[in-house]
């Protein structure tokens, strides 16, 4: 297994310890619950929490900081956090203004957060739960748990985090989560599989000349398996799936994200962005903000996802507001 790990059982606590060691001015941990929270939580502002499986870094614990999440907990790699970790996360930052619980739409996460929310509400904590489901790869129907929450999650966290900083009410922050989620769409693509450290082997097999279109961020199968195509054709597939779904149409101002899944180097993401920006121009979209890099990974999977968010003036302001997390360049 080609990984920088010690005992796989310690992978999550160790990387979280690294995140805290590197950001001790900003963040603190409650290791027992694999929980990272902001220092100095302001009780007058809405707190925003999230928690999901590990392996998606910088989502989710690395998205904690001023203007983003107030706290987050991590489960094992690709598995929802245990119920009591979710509960402690809510409790650790519960403010007078209330807590917004952002849950990506996976049954495991939802059940854990449902139980945690019930427990927290029973103790008188004021909260609202919101479910994020931006993955257009899932062909939704009455008979599934619906679309997955993937990289679009970043925009929900960013907008809610920025609004909460202004002292907005829980209802107002919740309304922004709703608006972002209603206007954001994502589609992913994998060139390779990935290896959860505890499993030690790839999560799925894929041929040397194959790619998985619409892959999930846990390696869940997507819409189809095809031969690898040139980057421009890949971009067209992703763009069309995303663009047509909302749909995004001429005159729209959008935020565009090309998200690396972990094993794809920066230059390749810009090859995708280059084509996606052209396609957006052809549709008549204006890319008001862009994001190229790793925001929601699937361990070391090679591949990318494309996300578009339709903007209004409030969302544009919220995205532009300053924020700070464990991810830094300088």
């Amino acid at each position, binding site marked *: 297994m080609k990984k920088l790990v010690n005992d796989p*059982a310690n992978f999550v606590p160790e990387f979280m310890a690294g995140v805290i060691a590197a950001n001790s001015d900003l963040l603190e941990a409650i290791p027992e619950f694999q929980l990272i929270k902001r220092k100095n939580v302001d009780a007058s502002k809405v707190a925003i929490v999230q928690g999901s*499986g590990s392996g998606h870094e910088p989502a989710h614990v690395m998205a904690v900081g001023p203007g983003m999440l107030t706290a987050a907990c991590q*489960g*094992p*790699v*690709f*598995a*929802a*956090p*245990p*119920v*009591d*970790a979710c509960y402690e996360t809510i409790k650790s930052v519960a403010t007078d203004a209330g807590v917004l619980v952002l849950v990506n739409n*996976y*049954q*495991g996460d939802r*059940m*854990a957060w*449902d*139980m945690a929310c019930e427990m927290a509400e029973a103790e008188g904590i004021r909260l609202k739960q919101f479910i994020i489901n931006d993955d257009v790869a*899932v*062909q939704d129907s009455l*008979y*599934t*748990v*619906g*679309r*997955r929450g993937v990289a679009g999650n970043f925009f929900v966290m960013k907008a809610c985090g920025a609004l909460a900083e202004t002292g907005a009410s829980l209802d107002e922050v919740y309304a922004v989560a709703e608006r972002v989620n209603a206007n954001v769409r994502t589609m992913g693509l994998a060139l390779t599989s990935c290896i*959860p450290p*505890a*499993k030690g*082997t790839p*999560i*799925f097999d894929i041929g040397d000349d194959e790619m998985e279109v619409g892959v*999930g961020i*846990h*390696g*869940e*199968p*997507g*819409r189809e398996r095809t031969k690898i195509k040139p980057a421009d054709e890949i971009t067209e597939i992703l763009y069309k799936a995303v663009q047509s779904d909302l749909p995004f149409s001429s005159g729209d101002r959008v935020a565009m994200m090309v998200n690396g899944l972990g094993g794809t180097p920066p230059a390749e993401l810009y090859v995708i962005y280059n084509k996606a920006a052209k396609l957006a121009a052809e549709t008549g979209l204006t890319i008001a903000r862009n994001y190229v890099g790793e925001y929601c990974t699937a361990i070391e999977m090679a591949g990318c996802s494309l996300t578009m968010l339709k903007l209004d003036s409030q969302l544009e302001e919220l995205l532009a507001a300053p924020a700070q997390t464990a991810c830094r360049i300088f």
Partner: protein
Amino acid sequence: MPTLNVAQIEQTLDVTCDTVIRNEQYFSDLDGLAGDGDFGTSLATGFKVIKAELPGMDKSAVGAMLLKLSMLCSKHVGGSSGPIWGTGFMKAAFVSKGLEEVTYDQLTQMVGAAVEGIMARGGAVRGDKTLLDALIPIHEKMQEMDGSDLGAVLAAVTAEADKAIDETRTLVAHRGRASQVGARSANTPDPGIVGVATILYDWCKHYGVDYKPQAAELAR
């Protein structure tokens, strides 16, 4: 009529721990086919703790022990399995609250309560291709039988779980992560059903109950 006391149930749980721990990799591999490959690890992580804490647990009543088990699942089992198995044990614990031993009817009620709890927790129904497709027929079979021969009951419920593997194999999952991959979950076994069947089959072996497995995942 035979009854089951705390020590007997503890013994069964200990066998269950061994089964889950031994099958960690296999269960995860099954989950990798249409899911995310963590089922084995999630479950095994929790059952390693359960195995270690079982000897020192509160044994004043069946319910007390099962409640502790439920809490350990909430604390140490990630993924969907934490809430599902945690809820199942919790509901069974409520039925057996304060009881030092349980009758066959009470046992059947415990399974029924677990089934209902899991259905309420995750919204799945029969045919959604989840472990409920094993647990629901198991509960029905237990209601049919009179429980005078627990070995016969064990063989019969193992057969139900075994059958469920093959009967649901071609189905498309409607709940859980596997449901989000659409038609591609067809022709893969559901790891939760295989898990339940494997536990029961191991109980058969442990208690000397003769059972011939049918599904490839059991007869390996």
